[in-house]
């Protein structure tokens, strides 16, 4: 889970889930606490789904929030 997915790709990461920013990968101070939690819960869930998914090449898993 990282913000700089291009760099992650360059160094060979196979499964990537985009995060919000460098200082708060899974937060966002501009959101209300409930929305911030929903974002973190969602993206962590995408990472869990990614672990259970077979891929044949480097893959960025899309997020909805």
């Amino acid at each position, binding site marked *: *889970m990282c913000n700089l997915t291009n760099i992650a790709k360059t160094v060979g990461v196979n499964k990537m889930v985009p995060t919000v920013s460098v*200082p708060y990968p*899974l937060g966002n101070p501009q959101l209300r606490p409930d929305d911030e939690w929903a974002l973190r819960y969602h993206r*962590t*869930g995408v990472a869990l789904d990614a*672990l*259970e998914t077979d*891929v044949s090449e480097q893959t960025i898993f899309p997020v909805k929030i």
Partner: protein
Amino acid sequence: MLKAIHYINQFFGQVGGEDMADYEPEIRTGTVGCTQIFNSLAKDVEVTHTVICGDNFMASRTDEALARILAMLEGVEFDIFIAGPAFNAGRYGAACGQVCKAVKEKHGVPVITSMNEENPGVELFHKDMYIFRGGNRATFMKQDMEKLAAFADRIARGGKLLPAVMEGYFPRGIRHEVFLEDIGREPVMAADRVVDMMIAKLRGEPYQTELPMPALDRVPVAPAVKDLRKVRLALVTSGGIVPRENPDRIQSCSATKWGKYDISGLEKGFTAPEYKTIHAGYDPEQADRNPNVVVPLDAIRAYQREGRIGEVDDYYYTTVGTGTTQGEAARMGREIAAVLHERNVEAVVLTAT
């Protein structure tokens, strides 16, 4: 006059060929076989002892061979250790690398060897020692020995050592700041050099980068975890989240340490200020307010309560990924992975900042 010890295999030690490759390590006073060439070339360094070991003995009983050789060197005075040249002999190259590395670690003396670029020993050991670019077979003995002897002499005289390419050894991956005039080059400032490079590139002319990118490791994609309810999952981060006291004193930048900390009692995720970030590469305000924005333990716990995932490892694993060299990162990665294996962790969520 500095004293040197020379390591050679059974063949160059004139013990025998392949049939003698199991020859046990042995130390002899004075020079043997090709060692005489070194002494005839070097002016300020003299080989006083020769260590001989069969290539198969070193390859199959490495730990024992190294221990026995180090024991033989006890009480022998020497300033430099030389091995080979190994040309393109794979076992011999690996043996030279292993012995040099062990001697360097124990005695802290300069260690020098020589191999052909095709020798697998180069890839294995070029970061640990001076490996001179050598010929592919023993007919290059004299030329390769000349390089070793000349470099040993320069070390003996305390002369300034030049960059790897100029000296003729394989780059060790170490960068030093140098002034061009000090290494006999025309002093051209960096801005001019880079523009010259760009013009050459645009014209399709050859140019030499000053910052070669390291070759990247490609890792095969791990097979999917079949069911996260049935495996142990761990959290790893390069975002520098640590217990408040930073008990292992992990560095805030250019980290060489990582830590593993118990989270078994944190049922609702990380709490602040008990946990914080020590990462010096980003503004810590949000991470210090709520460390879960870097390592989403609270969300992981929620999924655990819901039954989406099963066991979460009692520890999380953390270091700082700013200014950290790829070499250090790879080492820490291997170390963390080894612990994860030991703890039967089969799935990892890693957050990077």
